[in-house]
């Protein structure tokens, strides 16, 4: 060759280098260059042209690609379908091979994740409570502070005055409850919880309307907006806007809107909305709606850029100018509406954090378990992994193999978890919540939650897959191929052991708390309430009579008949029953000693009340229709009240209320009976005389025998049917109603038991996985021991022993912890059981017993194995 080698056009070479397949580039480049030199001798231009033609003919798609033999020297791309298929197949095979593990894993994960989903969903709903209002950051409510007590309500005329006096308030509305009128449309008659609001309601709150226009819905005074449910029950599926309904058989109202479903996490829940002006014509309302009575809820939207503190400071002048002299001490606060729920219900935050804590705790427990089980299941695959490495799998490939397996388990468990959550857990949860905020799950709203859960679970899968893979990769390959664990079988033992200890500690703590709560519940349900709840039948006689006077005279006849009834021991017609006393307080002081004032809960009671409920009196007497009780304004207090006044005897003492010249005379003192559930202390209480016996809200009958109940119910139902009314007679046995008060505790207990069960199950699954692994690793050792004369029993003991030691350690840690926690828990109840030693004994026995059962199943099987079998194969 001549030293002066002709070079082809550089851009054509560049084209070739860029686009020609890499593996044949070298030879093609060389060939073409040589050919160029050959063509060059016959003319430069011609050579360039032919060179270009040659280049083009070897560019894709014209060029044929060489099939690589080298393919097998290099690990294929991990997303290559065949690799993926291989991983998938191996994953399925190994999952199937360890069916038991897989099932335990699947079950534990899906129930656990299901619970986590529900809890997170719940927490999320609570965290975003009232957060859906468009003006949310400018939305405030008025709080009244009086003598250190804070109320989320205020006086009625305030809203109008505020809107008039303070231009920095954009708009505002009342949300006023007063009474619930009967709504009548054609043949349908309903009464639903009704709120009275101002025309600006939909400018303040962002509740969506299904039908109707929020801008004009409350334009007219006789407008009524219904909830979806009420609209359906009155009008079916039709659009009711423009329809006319009759209120209390007298007023004609136009339906102007139907609310969309109000979010469950809204503090305001409505069925019927009307304008506050409707109340204006009610004399009783006019009387109450002054600047003194604090019963009205007021909500304000401030103008953009207004500082609420500055505005709040100005409110004191409003108190000075408008509030009556006796409420000059009152302070008004402007509170952000987003804190409304927290201000009203201080335990709400605890509920959220509790849910999150339980969710995290569950997640930790199931993750620990998943990792443990995976490591355990991976150990026997030592050889498989070693062989894979010998034939060229790299770290990534092994990792992906394990990720594939954990991923499959996770995917299936997430799906199962969602099914379990939607079809079992959420309905169960809603039932437990019993009318409180109901959960629902919808992909449209809750995808952040679901994505979070999905993300977290897949992170767990990743970790759970990485762990065993790294463990197996860290072993010496030459020994691993032979199935030897060169690093010793007990590498990572500390980790596994600590996991077991943690799991069992948690399980023990939960068992103790669950027992404690059960005992407390049992105690509360069976405790002496201070009155006799048995053989008492209560009729709900507040039936919305069409004619009160007719009802009252009919009622007198019924009461007279009851007096004759031999099955009736005693009865009374009262406004209240001891299980549902009003939250109604006032300040009382002994006549002439104004300094000794105390806050009393006060309720009404008729004659025969204490006799019927068998509330014992420690001094004096109960009310009677024959004496001068009404003239004397007689009252009966309880022991707590007597003590609060510092009296040894109370009968004959005189009491007065703030701002009221009326003097009340104490005629009796009851024992401290539990009119609230036992988580709350018996507070000072006062009954006033409700007047001569007549039909009222409740008719309480004490029977000679509970078996006489059905006949009486039957009789009274027939009697009451004759009185024209909108409702029919309802009734309950007092003891059932008492039990109802404990339903929230029951549901908490049920939830706690459920969590405990899961904790125990996962702990068992974990320990089961580990003992299986250990017995497998020690198969030869066991064989040799047997050959040398060890008994099956001693071997079983040997294998179980180390695990039981761990459980004992867990008990050692868990029992003091559970004692401390149990103390804290039980101290939230005013009347409580004490933690007893047998709780710990039972919890320990349960934990040990379950652990023993789980462990011995595997260890006995290993111990009984024929040594010939275990020693034969090398």
């Amino acid at each position, binding site marked *: 060759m001549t030293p002066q080698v002709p070079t082809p056009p550089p851009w054509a070479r560049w084209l070739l280098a860029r686009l020609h397949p890499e593996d044949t580039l070298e030879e*093609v480049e060389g*060939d073409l260059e040589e050919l160029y030199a050959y063509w060059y001798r016959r003319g430069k231009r011609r050579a360039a042209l032919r060179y270009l033609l040659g280049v083009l003919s*070897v560019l894709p798609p014209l060029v044929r690609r060489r099939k690589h033999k080298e393919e097998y020297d290099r690990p294929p791309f991990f997303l290559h379908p065949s690799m993926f298929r291989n991983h998938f197949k191996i994953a399925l095979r190994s999952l199937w091979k360890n069916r038991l593990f897989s099932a335990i894993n699947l079950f534990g994960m899906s129930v656990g994740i299901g619970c986590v989903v529900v809890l997170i969903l719940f927490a999320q709903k609570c965290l975003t409570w009232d957060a859906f209002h468009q003006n949310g950051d400018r939305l405030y409510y008025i709080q009244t502070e009086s003598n250190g007590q804070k109320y989320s309500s205020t006086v009625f005329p305030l809203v109008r005055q505020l809107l008039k006096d303070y231009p920095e308030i954009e708009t505002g509305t009342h949300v006023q409850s007063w009474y619930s009128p009967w709504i009548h449309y054609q043949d349908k008659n309903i009464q639903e919880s009704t709120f009275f609001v101002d025309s600006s309601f939909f400018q303040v709150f962002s509740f969506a309307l299904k039908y109707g226009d929020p801008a004009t819905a409350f334009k007219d005074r006789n407008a009524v907006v219904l909830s979806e449910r009420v609209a359906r029950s009155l009008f079916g599926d039709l659009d009711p806007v423009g329809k006319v309904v009759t209120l209390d058989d007298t007023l004609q109202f136009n339906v102007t809107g139907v609310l969309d479903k109000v979010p469950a996490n809204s503090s305001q829940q409505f069925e019927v909305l009307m304008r506050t002006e409707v109340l204006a014509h009610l004399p009783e309302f006019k009387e109450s709606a002054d600047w003194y009575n604090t019963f009205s809820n007021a909500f304000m939207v401030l103008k953009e850029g207004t500082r609420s503190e500055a505005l709040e400071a100005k409110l004191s002048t409003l108190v000075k100018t408008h509030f009556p002299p006796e409420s000059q001490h009152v302070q008004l606060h402007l509170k952000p509406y987003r804190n409304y729920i927290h201000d009203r219900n201080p335990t709400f935050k605890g509920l959220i954090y509790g849910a999150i804590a339980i969710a995290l705790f569950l997640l930790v427990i199931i993750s620990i378990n998943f990792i443990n089980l995976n490591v355990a299941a991976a150990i026997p695959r030592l050889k498989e992994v070693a062989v894979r490495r010998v034939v060229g799998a790299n770290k990534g490939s092994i990792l992906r193999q394990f990720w594939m397996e954990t991923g499959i388990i996770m995917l299936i468990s997430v799906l199962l978890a969602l099914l379990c959550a939607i079809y079992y857990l959420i309905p169960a949860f809603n039932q437990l919540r019993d009318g409180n905020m109901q959960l629902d799950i919808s992909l449209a709203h809750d995808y952040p939650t679901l994505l979070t859960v999905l993300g977290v679970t897949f992170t767990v899968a990743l970790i759970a897959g990485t762990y065993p893979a790294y463990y197996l990769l860290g072993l010496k390959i030459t020994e691993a191929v032979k199935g030897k664990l060169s690093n010793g079988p007990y590498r990572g033992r500390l980790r596994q052991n600590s996991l077991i200890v943690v799991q069992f500690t948690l399980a023990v703590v939960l068992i103790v708390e669950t027992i404690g709560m059960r005992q407390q519940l049992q105690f509360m349900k069976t405790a002496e309430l201070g009155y006799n709840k048995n053989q008492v039948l209560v009729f709900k006689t507040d039936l919305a009579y069409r004619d009160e006077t007719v009802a009252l005279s009919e009622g007198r006849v019924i009461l007279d008949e009851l007096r004759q009834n031999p099955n009736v021991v005693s009865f009374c017609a009262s406004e209240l029953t001891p299980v549902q006393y009003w939250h109604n307080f006032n300040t009382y002081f002994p006549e002439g000693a104004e300094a000794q004032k105390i806050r009393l809960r006060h309720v009404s009671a008729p004659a025969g009340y204490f006799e019927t409920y068998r509330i014992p009196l420690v001094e004096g007497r109960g009310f009677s229709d024959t004496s001068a009780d009404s003239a004397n304004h007689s009252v009966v207090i309880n022991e707590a009240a007597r003590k609060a006044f510092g009296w040894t005897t109370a009968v004959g003492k005189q009491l007065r209320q703030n701002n009221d010249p009326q003097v009340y005379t104490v005629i009796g003192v009851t024992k401290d009976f539990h009119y609230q559930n036992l988580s709350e202390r018996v507070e000072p209480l006062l009954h006033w005389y409700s007047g001569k016996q007549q039909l009222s809200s409740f008719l309480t009958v004490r029977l000679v025998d509970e078996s006489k109940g059905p006949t009486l119910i039957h009789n009274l139902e027939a009697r009451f049917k004759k009185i024209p009314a909108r409702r029919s007679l309802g009734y309950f046995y007092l003891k059932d109603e008492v039990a109802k008060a404990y339903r929230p505790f029951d549901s908490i207990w049920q939830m706690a038991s459920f969590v405990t069960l899961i904790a125990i199950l996962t702990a068992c699954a974990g320990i089961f996985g580990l003992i299986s692994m250990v017995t497998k690793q020690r198969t030869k050792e066991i064989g040799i021991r047997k050959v040398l004369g060890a008994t099956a029993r001693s071997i079983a003991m040997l294998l179980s022993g180390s695990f039981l030691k761990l459980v004992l350690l867990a008990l050692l840690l868990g029992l003091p912890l559970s004692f401390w926690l149990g103390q804290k828990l039980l101290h939230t109840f005013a009347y409580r059981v004490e933690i007893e030693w047998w709780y710990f004994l039972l919890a320990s026995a349960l934990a040990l017993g379950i652990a023993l059962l789980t462990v011995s199943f595997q260890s006995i099987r290993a111990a009984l194995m024929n040594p010939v079998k275990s020693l034969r194969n090398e």
Partner: protein
Amino acid sequence: MRRTYLGEFEELVLLMVAILNGEAYGVTVTQEIEQQTGRSVTFGTVHNTLIRLEEKGFVRSELGGATAERGGRRKRLFSITAYGSRTLQEIQQQRSQLWQMVPPTSLKVSGA
């Protein structure tokens, strides 16, 4: 008849590989075809055909050592495999058998 499908061009390239006897690579095959048949072929056709022949098992290839020529790039040298040579021989044999069956008169232009 055994079915060994070999296209016309493939047969030509295979023959060239046989002729070049160990010296066959992209350049020599291209040049040989041009010189012996007068056909002008693009390099890509030859390149692709060689790859296809290798896939079918008629030739094998290996990368030759680096030389100072062509910028030190290696050549891919092709040689005929046993299967390739047997196939060529079979074709040859078949052809000559067929040639013998042609009546001498039939190839003469009539009327001449």
